């Protein structure tokens, strides 16, 4: 393991941190694959996964302080949830709607992440409705004089909503400590970005709200990390909001209920598969002598084992009792 200064392009990360990032990406990939598999086996109702988005998700979430900063993810953010501290077990309990699911006690749709101690905030299914929540949380932090940062995630389709505009405008006016991460994967389900907006980089819209915007290669985890780190520092210092557009690609269909062959060519998917962020980062780690093939393989095995164990555990866990149906609806004294 080499020291920090000896790793060019590592954005100041130590060797351990670089491997931690890789491990989180691996976990996210394997949890995504597992959920899709469980769905096809008839064990899980629905899978929304993030294969291909791992660099964007882990890279943006890694600079945050878990349990202190507020994280407002969208449904594809398995990599965000894991980076902040949710376990594969947490995610699979939710996927299988188990009683001990921390996200919603088995009530909400899968991938509607929530974890009170980790400050991962539950969202609704309609696209971008959580952006105003994030602006509100950031406003609360400001009013309370706290240096908490809020990070909110959405896809390219989220940018066309009124909620996105209102949230960004409020964040601009009040110079809020919020980071808007757009995971631009070129498709809002089946709608391509050329039908979504008439601009090349949607990050240009930050100027509409008086804060900086940046477009970054969303498959380059270290580039994403560097952009996020800078944005987090700005937010924590009271310098206001940032819009980060991470250009990436969803390597699998939108959900388990989608057939992406109807709107994407196989050639396009293959081209992006060749840019798989996990393979790219793995190559980088080897090229920069951060680690070797053997260690990376061990990490892979470890992650797979962790997901296997979590699957077994979650499958055995009980579903919510019918008597508890009204819990988590009203305030419980």
């Amino acid at each position, binding site marked *: 393991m080499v020291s920090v200064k000896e790793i060019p392009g590592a954005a100041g990360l130590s060797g351990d941190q670089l491997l931690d990032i890789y491990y989180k990406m691996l976990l996210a990939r394997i949890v995504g694959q597992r959920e899709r598999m469980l769905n096809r086996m008839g064990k899980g109702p629905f899978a929304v996964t993030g294969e291909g988005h791992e660099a964007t998700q882990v890279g943006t979430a890694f600079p945050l302080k878990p349990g202190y900063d507020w994280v407002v993810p969208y449904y594809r953010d398995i990599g965000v949830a894991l980076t902040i501290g949710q376990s594969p077990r947490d995610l699979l309990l939710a996927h299988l709607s188990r009683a001990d699911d921390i996200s919603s006690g088995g009530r909400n749709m899968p991938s509607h992440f929530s974890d009170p101690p980790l400050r991962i905030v539950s969202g609704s299914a309609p696209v971008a409705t959580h952006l105003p929540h994030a602006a509100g949380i950031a406003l609360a932090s400001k009013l309370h004089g706290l240096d908490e940062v809020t990070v909110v995630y959405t896809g390219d389709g989220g940018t066309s909503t*009124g909620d996105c505009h209102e949230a960004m405008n409020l964040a601009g006016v009040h110079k809020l400590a919020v980071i808007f991460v757009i995971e631009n994967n070129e498709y809002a389900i089946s709608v391509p970005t050329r039908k979504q907006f008439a601009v090349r980089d949607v990050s240009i819209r930050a100027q509409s709200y008086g804060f900086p915007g940046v477009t970054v290669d969303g498959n380059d985890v270290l580039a994403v990390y560097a952009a996020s780190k800078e944005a987090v520092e700005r937010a924590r210092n009271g310098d206001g909001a940032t819009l980060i557009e991470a250009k990436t690609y969803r390597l699998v269909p939108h959900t388990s209920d989608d057939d992406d062959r109807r709107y994407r060519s196989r050639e396009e998917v293959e081209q992006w598969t060749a840019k798989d962020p996990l393979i790219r980062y793995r190559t980088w780690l080897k090229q920069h002598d951060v680690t070797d093939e053997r260690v990376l393989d061990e990490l892979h095995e470890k992650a797979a084992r962790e997901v296997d164990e979590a699957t077994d555990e979650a499958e055995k866990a009980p579903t919510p009792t019918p008597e508890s149906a009204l819990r988590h609806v009203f305030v419980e004294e």
Partner: protein
Amino acid sequence: MTATTEAIKTHGLTEKQLLQMLEKMLLARALSIRQRMLQRMGKGPMTFSGEGHEAAQVGSAFTLRPGVDWVFPYYRDVAVAVTIGMTAVDILRGFFARRDDINSGGRNMPSHFSHPGLRIVSGSAPIATQLPHAVGAALAAKLRRLDEIAVGYSGDGSTSTGDWHESMNFAGVHRLPIVFVCEHNNYAISVPWRKQAAIENVSIRAEGYGFSGVTVDGNDVLAVYGAMSDAVKRARAGEGPTLIEAKTYRLMPHSSDDDDRRYRTPEEVEAWSAKDPVVAFPRHLKELGVLDDSAAKEINDQVNRAVDEATDQVEQEPQPDAQTAHRHVLVEQEGA
């Protein structure tokens, strides 16, 4: 006014057209003053004054083809309505909620302009809800391959709404023949622009939707006309939308129910009164040699007479018959 330089300054407008613009501005002003007066006399329920906005409104609307292009005004746009062709009688019938009111048969709030023949489209009271309608009209024109354009008007407060964003974005994606005119008077009722957005010029947002945006002096009717002419040309040529931000000032309170002394200083209002467009434009026309004192007086007298006569006429007119309360609500079939 024969020299080429003058033609450039006035965008090729003829003397007759320049005087028509002045007449529309003065008519709108006189109507606003009259409505405020009638409201204070207890004769009308509520007024929205357009005083101060006449240059932005007339300058933009004068470029349109009445009855062909689609106009989606907001409540302050009395000068848009009269430029497109509504009369003092039309406006005051709306104000007095009379039976023969073309806007809504006396049903809607005053200043919710509507005129099917002139393609002035009725709007709802919530801010900016007319903009998605305008975009829809522009999309229809495009799908039907017509060279009609749509114009959506709103104030600076509307720019913070989701409807505004969704309209701009959709118009950009589909390159619709539409012009968005933002009458930026620095206050959304009492909320100043600095609390509305963290940018100086809202026109900068057009770039984020993939079309042109321009900020123009909204008290300079010819500057507004020039910017709008360019935008209309682009729209008609299939080159997509434009956002025009006309910076102006509302010289009166927001409505008859507002006390603007609670949020604006008298000094600020005075400074803008010195830039009153209905004073500046005749002065400019005199400098150009298009207008003299007697012609100015004549236009003024004519406008005031029109408003007086319209007031007298409309005051005598009947209100809607109580039996008709359900009309204009559901589709009315012939013979039903």
